[in-house]
């Protein structure tokens, strides 16, 4: 008899806990909106950019085509302290360290005037692109539409940051991997075909970045 009473208590208790679970779920499902498809796509695209710290770019600006590469990480400074940022190398042009908005410093090469470096960094560096896309996804200030980029159908994610700055990121419709970024600042517009790649010494060397990331020998 005692066993039956105890069993009854356990069954009532478990049923009650299950009811709390079910009603909690129903409350959330009924009261909170699901994320928009555009926000979901942008979140995954941001994760791609977060995962890959090295991007090989093909820039198009003012009807001219130039290659470049951008590497995210911690880099040494003149005073010896390491700082987080990106190294952007533009083919036969400058190599720049970008350690924050409007904080660019020349660390190699020479300016060739082919491509504005601010536009190149905004379009071709994962460290610059990822937060813009993620913030837009989280704040809902994002539009998605069908498009065509990199010789394939794509999803276009459009972000406006004020009147002056616009970003359109084309992503693969299957994996949401970023393909092309178009950044417009005022009247200037640059396009970057993005190749997210693993960091390989020969590619770093090809873009004059290897010596900037290699640890210096201790004296």
């Amino acid at each position, binding site marked *: 008899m005692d066993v039956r009473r105890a069993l009854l208590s356990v069954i009532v208790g478990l049923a009650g*806990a299950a009811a*709390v679970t079910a009603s909690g779920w129903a409350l959330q499902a009924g009261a909170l909106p699901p*994320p928009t498809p555009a926000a979901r796509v942008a979140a995954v695209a941001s994760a791609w950019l977060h995962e890959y710290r090295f991007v090989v770019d093909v820039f198009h600006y003012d009807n001219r085509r130039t290659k470049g590469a951008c590497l995210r990480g911690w880099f040494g400074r003149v005073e010896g302290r390491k700082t987080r940022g990106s190294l952007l190398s533009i083919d036969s042009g400058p190599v720049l360290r970008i350690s924050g908005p409007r904080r660019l410093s020349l660390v190699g090469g020479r300016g060739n005037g082919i491509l504005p470096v601010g536009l190149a960094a905004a379009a071709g560096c994962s460290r610059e692109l990822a937060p813009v896309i993620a913030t837009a996804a989280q704040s809902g200030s994002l539009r998605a539409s069908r498009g065509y980029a990199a010789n394939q159908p794509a999803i276009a994610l459009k972000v406006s940051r004020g009147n002056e700055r616009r970003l359109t990121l084309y992503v693969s419709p299957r994996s949401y991997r970023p393909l092309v970024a178009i950044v417009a600042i005022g009247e200037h517009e640059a396009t970057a075909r993005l190749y997210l790649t693993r960091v390989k010494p020969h590619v770093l060397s090809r873009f004059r970045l290897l010596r900037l990331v290699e640890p210096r020998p201790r004296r």
Partner: protein
Amino acid sequence: MSVGSNTIGRGLELSRPPRWLLGWWGVGRLVAIGTALALRPTAWTLDRWDGRWYRMIARGGYLLVPGRQSDPAFFPLYPVLLRALHAAGVGWGIAGPLLSNVALLLGLGLFYALTREIFSESLARRSTIYLAIFPLSYVFSMTYPESVVLVLLAAAPLAAMRRHWWLAACCAGAAALARPEGLFVALPLAGIAWTQRPSLSPARRGAALAAILAPVGALASYSLYLDRVLHDPLAWSQAERAWGRRFRIAGAYRAFAHLPVALGHTPWLVRDVVFFFLYLALLYAAWRLGTPLVWLGAAAAIVVVPIFTGAFDSIARFGLLAPPLFWGLAALTRDRRTDRIVRAASLVLLVAGTASLPYVFP
């Protein structure tokens, strides 16, 4: 009044809040809101930090952005209430502070009733006043869920003590849907169920078991919901990691070992470290007072478990949801002079705490 609210009212036998309680609630809110408005004459000060995230969830739902701080780290009940308030015509910026301040009045009333049932009227009165004007109590006026959780954390054991176990189950579940600290209410509920055990019918025992399991059930419902909308049942844990919070056995050691470096980066952290040790002292005072062990266990969990994430951040705020800390404080102020000193010091520190809001998160 609706049938539902009648049932709740009968379950908790709520009466009009006493005048002194209304008065101290008013004093506390006047000081906190007045200081916030003096800093900037808008709701900005009270609606910032985590408030932005709660508002974001209320407006657009959850979204996990891997590797980046994102909103699944914030539990869903408060955004649901914000959304309901907004649907009733209240603006987003005002909804949070309005909800929190009103909920605090109800929470103080329930806390007073609960404390009176466990201890004496005088101790209940003192501890309720301290809670109303505690230095960190400006959080109760912000777009933060602490006020709502206080209501539920006081209502659940109070309903259980009055043998309204189904109501206790609802409150305990709702508490866990609002803040992870809600999980620990299961401990006092288990203690109350154990003491009532001989006199409970099998069905009531089942309801008591449901109340003890309700916080876990509610947490499971959150995971199931996240699985549905984000395809990741542990999205909340993943989002916590982007804030640098990750539970590890060695987390407590890391919190102490990295403290000098952390203080170098964020000198404000000294506030949380001081309150951590103050809370431990108050727990000791609560133990000396004769607070039931299950309550002490729940409060210790609220204060100590967060340091297993490797940091002291926000522990001062977490302590607001541990009633034994305020019982311990009230136990130390039996003479009038000490009582007055604590009240005066609390009010001064409340002003200072609110004034720190533009610089540091609570």
